[in-house]
């Protein structure tokens, strides 16, 4: 069968047309993929913004916590010391020289203690710098403060922890998680002993906080709206790609483990 030249011309025309349609579809594909890329970028930006907002909130909370500690310390510690100083000074009888010398020595001691307290407070005021010194140092400092109350026996273990080279945002959120968990223990657990462990296992960072308090029903607490801030802890850990494990048995204390990759 012989093909006429007109048929060949028709075929050439048809092939050329197909060869023109193919790039058209290719361009449509590239444009639609580009739109998806835009959508993905917008979602990423929104996620980043949410993270930044949460980070800002966390930083404010760390500051608030510091201010609360300062308020308590001013009232319970420095306030008391200065009150005793005033009372002692007003009770001085200049005619009784022996007693006066004794009282002045006591006032001097009280003043020295007040200065020490103010210095400690000043260190605490640099709350934000605290996290910059490193997570372990910040936790240690916070625990040191907690130990002064003599309400808890603190066990801090950081044997398997070297340096945590996360970005400062991640460290701030982690430090706030630690603060929130400790606050929960202080407010609800009625514990006498707290165990804190900082570990690095392969590419994971693990923070374990355990207490010997009264414990609580985890499922029941999580069902509640505020849930002792446990939802917040889980949400914030998830924001830095971490996971939270909450274990507790009534009467046998509780344990919260925060694990994040780094």
């Amino acid at each position, binding site marked *: 069968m012989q093909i006429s030249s007109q048929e060949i011309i028709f075929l050439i025309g048809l092939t*050329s047309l197909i*060869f*023109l349609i193919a790039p058209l579809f*290719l361009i449509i594909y*590239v444009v639609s993929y580009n739109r998806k890329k835009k959508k993905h970028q917008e979602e990423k930006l929104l996620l980043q913004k949410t993270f930044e907002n949460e980070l800002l909130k966390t930083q404010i909370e760390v500051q608030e916590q510091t201010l609360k500690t300062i308020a308590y310390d001013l009232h319970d510690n420095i306030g008391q010391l200065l009150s005793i100083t005033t009372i002692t000074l007003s009770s001085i009888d200049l005619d009784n020289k022996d007693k006066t010398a004794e009282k002045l020595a006591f006032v001097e001691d009280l003043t020295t203690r007040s200065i020490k307290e103010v210095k400690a407070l000043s260190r605490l005021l640099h709350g934000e710098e605290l996290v910059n010194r490193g997570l372990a140092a910040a936790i240690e400092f916070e625990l040191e403060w907690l130990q002064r109350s003599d309400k808890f026996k603190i066990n801090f273990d950081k044997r398997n922890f070297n340096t945590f080279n996360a970005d400062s945002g991640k460290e701030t959120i982690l430090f706030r998680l630690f603060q929130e968990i400790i606050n929960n223990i202080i407010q609800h657990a009625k514990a006498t002993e707290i165990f804190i462990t900082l570990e690095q296992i392969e590419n994971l960072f693990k923070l374990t906080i355990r207490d010997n308090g009264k414990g609580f029903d985890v499922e029941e607490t999580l069902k509640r709206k505020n849930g002792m801030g446990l939802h917040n802890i889980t949400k914030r850990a998830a924001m830095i790609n971490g996971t939270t494990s909450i274990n507790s048995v009534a009467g046998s204390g509780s344990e919260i483990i925060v694990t994040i990759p780094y």
Partner: protein
Amino acid sequence: MMFITINTGCEFICFLAALIFLIKDKDTAWKLFIPYLLLTCLVEMTGVYMRKVAHVPNYALYNTFLLFECGVTGYMFYSLYKPFKSTGKWLITWYIIFVAVYVAELVMTHFKAFVSITATVMSVVFVLASLYYYYLKLMDENFERLAFSAPFWWVSGALFFYFGSTTCNIFFDYLSSLKPINNQLSIRYYIFILLNITLYSFWSYAFLCRYLRRKSSS
């Protein structure tokens, strides 16, 4: 009047667009389109003159023009790849291959015909180059509004033209041997009118995008 055809008209409009929009452009590759499109217009008109007035074959003219086409288009692709990766060696390799095929075909045809095999090879390479640009664009994490992206529209125009002309280039010898339709124009001519309209519309729009971008960033 015989010099004003759809093809020459398209080319001239595109040249004017290049002249207006690219005259102050800082990129050499883009600016190169002003002399290149002027040359295209001149070649096209000389081609018409040779065919219709002097009645002499114009293949030698188009063979020479092919060198400029390959040079400018190749350099443009190289320039478009620059933000993604350095392809200087690829460009040189391509120029060497092109010259080798071109000279070989000229010798084979005893300098007496259009170098259609070279044109086909060049079309295929530029189609691949266009597709590779799309690939780089898809892989790129940065988002760019393609509706106003000069490189994207330039590449799209080139892809349409070189992909669409492949069939004509392959069947060049056969089409040349046929008698023209209506005793005037061949099917090849009609296809190239369609391709030229597409190419020069896309390129003119690309030049406009380039101009708008320069204006908005200054």
